[in-house]
């Protein structure tokens, strides 16, 4: 489910089936790193959207948690923790963070959800069909990870 009113309406009538929240993590930086920052975000957007399409009925794609890369790490993590607190634990038993920012790996233990780090692929040089197959192969691996997690908590 996407963060649009139509999907949320469906969600409200089928809450018991949607138990997974996916939060993309975007870092924003300006100056020299601007392009890299955009390319990362683009990759994560494509990936999470495709993932949402595969698992529409079970996961909620939350708007991305966006932060300035130049900010203090404590602040960034505290910000995300606040999101965690606000997400209804009863409803969303599984929380996944998806990012291509390696720094998050150091703080994985502090987060309640599972952190998935994927190296960003330079998609801008690929044509449409190559892009799709690239993202698809990545998502396929994620899918098995998700189903595995779901099975653990049955």
């Amino acid at each position: 489910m996407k963060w649009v009113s139509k999907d949320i309406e469906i969600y409200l009538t089928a809450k018991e089936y949607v138990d997974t929240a996916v939060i993309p993590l975007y870092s924003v930086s300006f100056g020299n790193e601007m392009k890299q920052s955009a390319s990362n975000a683009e990759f994560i957007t494509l990936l999470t959207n495709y993932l949402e399409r595969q698992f529409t009925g079970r996961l909620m794609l939350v708007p991305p948690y966006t932060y300035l890369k130049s900010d203090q790490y404590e602040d960034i993590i505290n910000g995300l923790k606040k999101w965690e607190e606000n997400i209804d634990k009863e409803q969303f038993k599984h929380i996944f963070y998806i990012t291509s920012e390696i720094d998050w790996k150091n703080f994985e233990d502090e987060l309640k959800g599972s952190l998935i780090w994927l190296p960003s692929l330079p998609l801008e040089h690929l044509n449409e069909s190559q892009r799709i197959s690239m993202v698809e192969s990545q998502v396929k691996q994620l899918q098995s990870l998700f189903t595995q997690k779901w099975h653990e908590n049955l």
Partner: protein
Amino acid sequence: MSKHRVSRRQFLSYTLTGVGGFMAAGMLMPMVRFAIDPVLKAEAGGDFIATPLKIKDITTEPQRVDFTFEQKDAWYTSDVTNTAWVYKDEQDNIVALSPVCKHLGCTVGWASSEDHPDQFFCPCHFGRYTKDGTNVKGTPPLAPLDVYPIQEKDGLLYLGKAEPRTKEA
């Protein structure tokens, strides 16, 4: 010289009728068009979209076909890729099923569950459909998979807009 001499009066009345007729038509046409507008409207979504799949390559085993078309979302245009499961049934009819689960919209896969190799399977809540798209009783989906209308052109498969089937399991 013609025998019928056109009098000035006749000439004027012909001219006036002609011009008047044009003016009346000019006024009435938009009104009529306006009145029957729904009839004139081109049917949205009625277009068939080409897929890369050749008709002769379709087998009895469902195979995945991706096809891309342009979608308008308010002023935002984007290329959307949709998927269909295509196969030939026993009567040699081509069947194209939508992969969107009728439960909550996940993407179903053919034979993606080891326990049910000849069914469509939804990984989200373990919904299942038989090969013809009928939902298996006792699993979450309440309706059969949508069906794409199909067309053949130049040996390629063309798909229309997926339509729900009314038949219940």
